[in-house]
């Protein structure tokens, strides 16, 4: 009974929390392998665009709308995430992600300037729902390897992969 109350509380509380809660972001100084220097403006733009991509991911997975992934995700990352959202929709489930903490560090800026790799030790809540019924809720701490590539006006996530901690 207590568990059911807690689950219901969470079901009500999570959407509000998603609106109210902004993730805590820590950025470590870049530890670059690569010959290309990273300008402060580039670093700031990459981090800004990456954090924005989590917002898109949250909306896309909650609403089962893969089109919300653009333009934050491109290439393989977009294809994989969009395929998962389609699978969710067919199964009648949706997922709420709420990123709580990001501990970011840029580790590679390719010499030709066409990719930036970042490690993100991220903490997030994942809640899987069958329509409105909560199937599971879990807090996950994991390490993401992220590769972003430049498009016309922004950096877009091209590789987005949780790696073993």
């Amino acid at each position, binding site marked *: 009974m207590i*568990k059911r109350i*807690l*689950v219901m*509380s*969470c079901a009500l*509380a*999570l959407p509000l*929390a998603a609106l109210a809660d902004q993730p805590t972001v820590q950025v470590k100084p870049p530890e670059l*392998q*690569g*010959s290309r220097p990273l300008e402060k403006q580039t670093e700031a733009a990459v981090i800004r665009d990456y954090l924005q991509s989590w917002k898109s*991911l949250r909306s896309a*997975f909650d609403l089962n709308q893969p089109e919300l992934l653009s333009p934050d995700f491109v290439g*393989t990352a977009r294809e*994989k*995430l969009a*395929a*998962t959202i389609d*699978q*969710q929709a067919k*199964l009648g*489930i949706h*997922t709420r*992600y709420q990123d709580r903490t990001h501990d970011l560090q840029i*580790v*590679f800026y*390719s*010499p*030709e300037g*066409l*990719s930036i*790799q970042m*490690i993100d030790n991220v903490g997030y*809540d*994942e809640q*899987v729902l*069958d329509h409105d019924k909560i*199937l*599971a*809720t*879990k*807090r*996950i701490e*994991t390490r993401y*390897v992220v*590769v972003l590539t430049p498009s016309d006006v922004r950096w877009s996530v091209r*590789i*987005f*992969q*949780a*790696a*073993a901690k």
Partner: protein
Amino acid sequence: MLIGLALAAVSMAPAQSVHMSLPPSVTAGSAFSIPTAGSGKAVLYIVGQGQAIRRDVQMGEATMFPAGALYNAGEYLAILVNGASTESAGFYVSPAPQPETLGFLAKPSRLPVGIRGGISGAVYVFDTYHNLITTPLPVSLELANASGTMQSHTITTRNGVAWTTMDSAAKEGPAKFVARIAGVSSTRVIDQVPGDPCGLTITARPNNGKVTVQTAPVHDCSGNPIPDGTIVTFTETYNDQQSTVDVPIKQGIARVDMPAYPGAKISVASGVVAGNEIRWGGGK
């Protein structure tokens, strides 16, 4: 605070369950099974950012996932729904260890000869399912010129990527830039082109009342012929007047017929490189 406590409580609940047991680790694309305990029918969900799968299960039996069923690396939740009760647990799917494709970023596709560190290559290593293989692997990067000379570096990947820089050769021509790992390779062609013209010189001779001006074969400072189509500008100055003409190099030289004015000065340039100047009618 309350939400956090609630989440913590809910998250702990599945951990106490004993109705399903997950493998300690799963490799992308490999077969695995999830045994269950108890009786009756239930539904098993495998949900992550990489895939979402549903299976009807008979409690007390193992649910089989054949090779290729779960292939995207990342964190997953396994959720067992048995009537009103659910239990869940997380597990990780790691990339397959065998490289299958390479993302090879080579730049530039064209550059002048003799540039130290002018060619760069970055290699991302992926498995069959396009998961980035983050375990360290040795990647060989080779730049082979048409003349047969080769530069070769072996670099170990870090977080799935390796990179290097190479020098462009002194002699023009295409070079093959190859990234290779465990039988998988990716090739790019780097076009090494001549640099600016060097020692640009012209000569002139009379031609039916005009003067034919032509360059000596145009080369860069390494002796590579400047490609046809490169523009050479001829300028003739006489009596406060001037004639100019932009001529493309054809078959190694640039040639033009200009008005023949005794005492005229004729000069040559290509881009920002100036050549010699001659005086028509008065010798060089």
